[in-house]
């Protein structure tokens, strides 16, 4: 049996009395795009922070391409690209300066031009980060996550707060990642349906259901993924709300 790209087993994380992640196990095969879908506060971000090694789990284990993200930190950083929710960059630096900086961290980075084209920022190359629109900042953030030719990528709330046109551009950028393993955190149903091979539905720190979008729809007996989410969680998914 081939080793999966990302394997999380029995993850558990508690902050004070609040259980953020309660026994979550995930398996993502190489080249696969897994969507993690859930409402705000469901534990999605904590789950990917545990996988990225930003936080230590109270229980459970994580392997990213066969490595432990906390013990083998240096090696994991080379093969895993991460786009964080709400991360800001050096505001006074231009798009090209930031790309050059993040490229310099890796031994064999993608070229600056390739990254600019991938996220369609060629026209903004000399623009400072703080002067970019929200969508442009998000796209730059994706480009930085891909700068080191990662084998696996975590994208947290890729399109939250973007207008429809910017959202479609982001989707196109993610669709161009054919060889990479992707974990996509989202609460946008349309996005998950379009981009993900499989979906894990998370609520209150637990996985309620997982499978292909079609399987989830079939399992719930609902006509579409939106309705399936409501049927499986008993909750209405908030649409395009800016998360705190």
């Amino acid at each position, binding site marked *: 049996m081939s*080793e999966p790209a990302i394997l999380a087993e029995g993850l558990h994380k508690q902050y004070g009395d609040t259980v953020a992640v309660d026994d979550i196990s995930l398996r993502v095969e190489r080249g696969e795009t897994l969507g993690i879908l859930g409402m705000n506060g469901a534990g999605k971000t904590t789950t990917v922070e545990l996988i*990225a090694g*930003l936080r230590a789990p109270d229980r459970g284990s994580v392997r990213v*391409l*066969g*490595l432990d993200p906390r013990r*083998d930190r*240096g*090696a*994991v*950083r*080379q*093969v*895993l690209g*991460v786009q*964080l929710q*709400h*991360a*800001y*960059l*050096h*505001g*006074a*630096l231009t798009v090209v*300066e930031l790309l*050059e*900086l*993040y490229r*310099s*961290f*890796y*031994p064999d980075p993608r070229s600056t031009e390739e990254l600019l084209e991938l996220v369609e920022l060629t026209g903004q190359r000399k623009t400072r980060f703080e002067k970019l629109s929200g969508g442009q900042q998000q796209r730059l953030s994706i480009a*930085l996550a891909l700068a*080191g030719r990662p*084998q696996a990528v975590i994208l947290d709330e890729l399109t939250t707060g973007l207008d429809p046109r910017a959202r479609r551009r982001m989707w196109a950028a993610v669709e161009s990642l054919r060889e990479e393993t992707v974990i996509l955190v989202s609460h946008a149903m349309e996005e998950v349906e379009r981009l993900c091979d499989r979906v894990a539905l998370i609520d209150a720190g637990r996985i309620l259901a997982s499978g292909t979008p079609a399987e989830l729809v079939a399992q719930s007996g609902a006509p579409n993924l939106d309705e399936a989410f409501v049927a499986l969680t008993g909750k209405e998914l908030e649409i395009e709300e800016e998360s705190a």
Partner: protein
Amino acid sequence: MSTAVAHRPGLHSWLTLIRCEAKMVVRDTAGLVVPIGLPLLILVMNASAAGDEEITAGRTALDLYILPLVFTIVTATIGIINMPSFLAYYRRSGILRRLAVTPASPAMVLIAQVVVSLIQAILGIALAFAVAVLAFGAHLPVDLGPAVGIVALSIAAMYALGMVVAALAPTPNSAVAIGLVGFFGLGALGGLFGGRDSLPGPLATLGEWLPFGASVEALSNAWAGQPVEAVHLLSLAVSAVLGAGIAAMFFRWD
């Protein structure tokens, strides 16, 4: 199987990061006013009155009292005010968190930041000294080597204090506030607003033991060619070591 090998960012990456941090500082023009502008202002306001009056060894009041104070203001503003506020901004905005998921360690950012602010300190001191020499006839210290050493020790002590502020402040805004209060507190006791002689006895002594006053006194002695008192060197060294220790113990990246 993964073929990943831990690869650490090399010299090229360090230089790129230092260049980026330098651009951040240069483009934040307001941030340069305090470390470069304030000492120059104090110099110019006091220099003409103090320039002609010889005190000892051919050195004037400008050399013995004003320049040590001006140099200390440069090191203290950069160490105690600028350093923690930059770190607070990086922490609040998530820049450090973002870097934590790249092969660059946040420590790299910190060191690049120190290098850039060292360059600022050296520029600030060089500029103030050049103006003092060219416009007001200031002289080099009698003991040049020790004076340079004291400036270095003063920089180390002020950075260490700044790191303590950055490490212990509960919120980013409080880091800036604590830095300002710390700077003016140490400064007031150390002769920032006129000689320590006008302070009550115990406060004057305390001010001399604290790093701001110690830096001014030690530099003044070196300028006059007099032996530097052990208590002043000790104050700076203890601040540097203790501060670095406390900061290392309590520091957090996000």
